[in-house]
């Protein structure tokens, strides 16, 4: 039996999505910029995709920019807006637990002469609004904050933050990295005061290598790449039509029967965390409880075990989870978020992330629990002291 429980790293594509991508690649392969019939068919795909994606956020199709994924969306939002707004201020704000795509963009801004404030988080991985309020200045051009933390699943107070930002400095723009939350939460950029929102397709059962950035109408933003002027010059390069079509279908599926699906996922998460606590001694579930945590991510520290060993053991049994965050597990450096929430140092290396999807079954969860329960004791015996 295979238990794929690494859905925050990436997801399997939905069958319908894979079929559609193949169809567009082999049958509707025109360049959307071409004026002939094939071109028109391709550009219609883009129009449809914009329509579908914008409707999931209740924004307008013109506000969707297609990108190559979460990293490019984050880069474009942060660099593009800060550079365009630098005449009115060179101060930007983010948090200490962001994805490297965000943090490294801010490093680049620092090199370009911006002043960067990095907000700490509380023990559950959330920014304190009081810290945010104090950090906003008259020359602050951008605040960037993730919606759902990729390592522990905590949900940032996005709505409150949006309101606060606009009340302290209406000119400050608000970027939200929604890579882990899109498809799992209802997001309404307009009422939430979000000016820019990053989304990745492969986290919601769409193809890899594609994503989008919501850019609120009227937002000043510079391109970060140059070329043939596609997408109003903001993102040159022939659009990834099959990927975009696949992403739109995946998004549509995600937001169909939404409440029911999320309810199931929450139940599964509750079952998993309760069973872990019940069946595996000496574990800690990281992050907040129920309402302020994403329905699909569980971060668990298993005292006396190395995450890498657990991962290898599980992998051998065809159970796939991550250590800390998948994006950094190849690096010896310890997870950002786990450190930031003040996890005990001896637990930093002992933390795994289990992340589920709509495809996850109770059987997979039971298989994981059984395997952990039966092997944790033996493995603990051989922990490096």
């Amino acid at each position, binding site marked *: 039996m295979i238990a794929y429980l690494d859905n925050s790293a990436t997801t399997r594509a939905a069958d319908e999505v894979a079929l559609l991508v193949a169809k567009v690649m082999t049958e509707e392969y025109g360049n959307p910029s071409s004026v002939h019939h094939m071109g028109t068919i391709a550009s219609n795909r883009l129009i449809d995709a914009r329509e579908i994606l914008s409707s999931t956020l209740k924004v307008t199709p013109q506000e969707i920019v297609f990108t190559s994924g979460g990293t490019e969306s984050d880069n474009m939002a942060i660099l593009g807006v800060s550079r365009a707004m630098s005449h009115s201020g060179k101060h930007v704000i983010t948090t200490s637990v962001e994805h490297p795509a965000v943090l490294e963009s801010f490093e680049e801004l620092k090199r370009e002469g911006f002043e960067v404030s990095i907000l700490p988080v509380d023990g559950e991985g959330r920014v304190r609004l009081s810290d945010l309020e104090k950090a906003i200045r008259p020359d602050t051009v951008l605040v960037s904050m993730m919606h759902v933390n990729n390592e522990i699943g905590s949900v940032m107070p996005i709505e409150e933050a949006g309101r606060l930002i606009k009340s302290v400095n209406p000119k400050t723009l608000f970027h939200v990295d929604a890579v882990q939350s899109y498809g799992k939460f209802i997001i309404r950029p307009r009422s939430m005061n979000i000016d820019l929102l990053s989304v990745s397709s492969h986290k919601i059962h769409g193809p890899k290598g594609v994503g989008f950035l919501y850019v609120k109408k009227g937002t000043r933003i510079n391109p970060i790449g140059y070329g043939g002027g596609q997408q109003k010059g903001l993102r040159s390069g022939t659009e990834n039509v099959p990927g975009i079509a696949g992403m739109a279908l995946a998004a549509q599926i995600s937001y169909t029967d939404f409440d029911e699906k999320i309810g199931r996922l929450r139940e599964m998460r509750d079952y998993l965390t309760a069973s872990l606590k019940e069946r595996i001694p000496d574990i800690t579930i990281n992050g907040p409880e129920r309402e302020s945590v994403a329905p699909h991510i569980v971060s668990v520290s298993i005292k006396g075990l190395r995450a890498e060993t657990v991962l290898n053991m599980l*992998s051998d049994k065809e159970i796939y989870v991550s250590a800390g965050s998948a994006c950094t597990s190849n690096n010896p450096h310890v997870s950002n978020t786990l450190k930031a929430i003040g996890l005990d140092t001896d637990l930093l290396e002992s933390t795994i992330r289990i992340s589920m999807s709509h495809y996850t079954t109770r059987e997979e969860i039971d298989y994981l629990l059984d395997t952990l329960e039966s092997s944790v004791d033996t493995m603990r015996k*051989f922990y490096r002291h």
Partner: protein
Amino acid sequence: MQYHAFVIKYAEIGVKGKNRYIFEDALVGQIKRVLKKCDGSFSISKVAGRIYIAAEDFDFDETVDALKTVFGITGICPAVAIKRDGENFLPDVPGVCRAVIDFVEGVYPDKHRTFKIRCRRVDKSYPMDSMELAAEIGARVLEAFPEMKVDVHNPDILINVEIREQLNIFSEIISGPGGMPIGTAGKAMLLLSGGIDSPVAGYMVAKRGVELEAVYFNAPPYTSEKARQKVVDLAKIIARYTGKIKLHVINFTDIQMYIYEKCPHDELTIIMRRYMMKIADILAARSGCMGLITGESIGQVASQTMQSLMCTGEVVRDMPVYRPLIAFDKQDIVDISVKIDAYETSILPYEDCCTIFVAKHPVTKPRLDVIERHEESLSERIEELVETALSTDEVIEL
């Protein structure tokens, strides 16, 4: 400049007396092996202490890079070769001069340089001797390119003109790796971890003509699939130089666990390494190897102090242990690792079986008698576990 030949230089092989042909044939074989993977058609000939490669439709950089991986080659000289016209005739003296002038024209766009012509006349029937011919060619080159100057002591460009069964003109010498061609020594078993040192050690011994097999001790689930893949990748990198390598993957987990359970933790690494050596020794003897190779260097880590080396080397009964890096500083090892393109793979951060259980303060001056006494507590099951480990031997041909 359109080169269409290479003159291959080799050093030590040239002085091996009557066995010389064995070494030359091995070298030709190795050159054929690497050129098989290159675009183009090549004909390799061995004449009077020289190896020539005539090349057609080839990519210059790809070919040179391939030749740089052949042990035994000290220099690769891209050359222009002019075949005999008809049966007997090489170009006459004015013809040779013209060919050299064309060569200079093509290879050196900037003529503000000093040069020297060096001739070798192997075909003594050629109407002018080496000295005369060099002087004549030099004069004609000066005439053609007045910006150039002759400097016989320290020229910028040394142009070699060889009158043999064909006319060869070459000036540039690209360094080869040196050493002896693979297949001229014997076979040895490399203990390959995922680190920086062992691939370099394998490379260095192979450079003396030694064929390699390698053994990796895998410790799942404490080491990952990626760690294993890293070792496979490293073996592939070494195989670029050595040709096919057999990599043995041995499952070492149970032995490691058993030692961990029974022996003092500060001696874990030493005892573990003793069993690795033992298993490598058995495997090596079975595959006809004449030595073990390790990447050890005195004092680099606790398990490589002189005392530790004594304890780990002592278990090898059937053959010598070669430790080519024994007196190398880390930086020197890193330099070679970078040179052979192993470094970036070596530094990928995956746990290997030597690091996972390492004690905080491992013993640095183990005493053999103490170690042996502690190993007695393994006596119940260790032989059986060693046999089991040997039976897990998974051979990957790279």
